[in-house]
């Protein structure tokens, strides 16, 4: 199958090592549209396994564990589709302290 690409800029931060959060660029091969959750799983499996995000899924867009900031807006990673050939930015959602990368220690849960 012909491979298409999605370019993602992801905000990374390890409070143990980094003075400041920084953006890292990833080029991800995809076959058709993918959800942000899938995109992140593809990065971990094929490109960079050190990227941290919550892997839990409820399959119905209701648990809120996967929320991230996508192009500035807070969305559910599982329920948000990304089209091939797009360029996107992902940052951790607000609501608690950043544990690492996209993982937030949400105060509310």
């Amino acid at each position, binding site marked *: 199958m012909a491979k298409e690409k999605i370019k993602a800029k992801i905000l990374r931060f*390890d*409070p*143990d*090592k980094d003075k400041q959060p920084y953006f890292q660029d990833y080029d991800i091969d995809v076959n*058709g*549209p*993918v*959800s942000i959750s*899938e995109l992140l799983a593809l990065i*971990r*499996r094929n490109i960079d*396994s*050190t990227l*941290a995000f*919550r*892997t*839990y*899924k*409820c*399959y*119905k*867009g*209701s*648990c*809120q*564990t996967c929320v991230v900031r996508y192009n500035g807006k807070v969305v559910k990673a*599982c*329920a*948000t*589709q990304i089209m091939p050939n797009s360029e996107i930015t992902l940052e951790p959602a607000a609501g608690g302290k950043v*544990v*690492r*990368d996209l*993982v937030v*220690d*949400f105060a509310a*849960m």
Partner: protein
Amino acid sequence: MEVQKLTTDVVVIGGGGAACRAAIEVAENGLDCIMVDKGRPGRSGATPCALWSIQAPFGPRGRDERDTPEQFFADMVNGGHFIGDQNIVEIVAFNACDRILDLERYGVHFKKYDDGRFFQTPMPGQTYPRSCFMFENGQHMSTVLAKEVSRHKNIKVMKDFFAYWLLKSKDAVVGIVGIDMINGRIVVVNAKNTILATGGYTSLWGFSDNPPTLTGDGIPMAFRVGADIVDLEFNQYYGTDVIWPPSVRGTVVLYELMIDEFADGEIRDKYGVPIIKKPLPIRDEAIKTIFNVIKEGRGTEHGGVLFDITKSPKGVEVARDVFKEMTPKHYQFLIDAAGLDLAKTPLEVAPASHYQCGGIYINEKGESTVKGLYSCGEAAGNFQGANRIAGTALTDTQTMGAQAGGCAAKDAKKKDLIPVDQKDLDLALDVIKEIVANKTKKINPAVVKQEILETMDKYIAPFRDEKGMNKGLSIIEDLKEELPKIYAPADINKYNLDLTEAIETKMMIESAELTFGSALFRKESRGHHNRTDYPEEDNKNWRCHTVVSNKNGKPEYSKRAVIYTRMKPED
């Protein structure tokens, strides 16, 4: 390595329905409890994924006055093909109503008739309609339970805590070792009793409707300390989960809503021909039909069948409203995540791994075969038998959750804390040291995990035979050889997914071995275990449990008699 040491009366592993209910019961018995969850209580495990349906035989207080705990008991025993232990089924059936009233007291909203009776829906396998209806489904139940846990001052909750080791001193389990993922610390919890409520291992298969985090860590942990494991060959599939497109793969669409009382839809092959006759049979039978249709080449492009309400005799709007009302979140999710409206297009669905019927062997108190270790919920084994009927799993989490919590608390009151054996703790620490040690060839755990998932999907689907399973087992054994190369960076402390995933992968290999072993051992077909080389149900030789015991680190398989209390098989 920095190790934090904590002590408590009872430690509970898990944050789903069973774990929360067990912790509440421990606390209400006046003891201290630490509850640890690999995710966030209320938003982890299978409980949030569940639908509205939780069975309780309310009889005159519900929809059909003829219903009784005795009838619920009989339905579970029959649905499980007579190999559920009845001492446990009794606890589930006879305490169901009280535990659901507890849920209501905690704040779960149930649908009621105007006169206050519980509204109940019928599901295949129920003699009378018995599924109570939770508004906002399992997600609501989960968050309400987690909130109830937080009201108890004597329960300490540790979120994002990955438990991977049961500590044993001489012949008893004395607590756990885990990784606090928020800060990377290794934590020992020394306890009088340990309750394992880690849920099922359905995500040992690639196509599953359970969260990917449910890798079933409880089984290898319990097996290592010598607890018997039971009936692993009966992993239940759910017939109709979306298989395409990938963004919604694994989303459940309710087979039970296709009955004429609800949507009156059809499951069709790729030519549009209906494949399941009405009234709809219980799950294991429906799944066999769907699998066979796909195998015969009558499946869709992506290996599914069509879930179709568009031609319902009730009219598509009425049929759609059933889904909108009964499973609103799923209905909307399919639209948001993939642009799929089931009122407009039939969905491509196929059977996916759904529920672990087997698990840790327990008795009616929730005790395993090892001192100090209890289990409840989906992690525990011998009460569903060869098949689970709809709506019993959530009931089990509340009935056996409370039972295990109460019994573990009462027992803990009678005994002193046994200290941790340093040698055993050292072994636990070695697991981490080996993974983060520098090595010449490094393997990414996520890659090995993917191979395990594919191997399970391919060789131990509901239909299986000796040749295929031996092949699958040999792939797993080859992967086992690779385990020493699995690597996680040593310089990441916080949320080190490589490390937790590496440990999970090791445990998944063990669970896979035990599952292949159990399925090879049972030479008949029953419930969710269909051996094409032994297609008949053989009550003379196999109306019994498959038990795996740990003999000096090696699995030993044997038969164990089923416990009958109220209903003996008639032949």
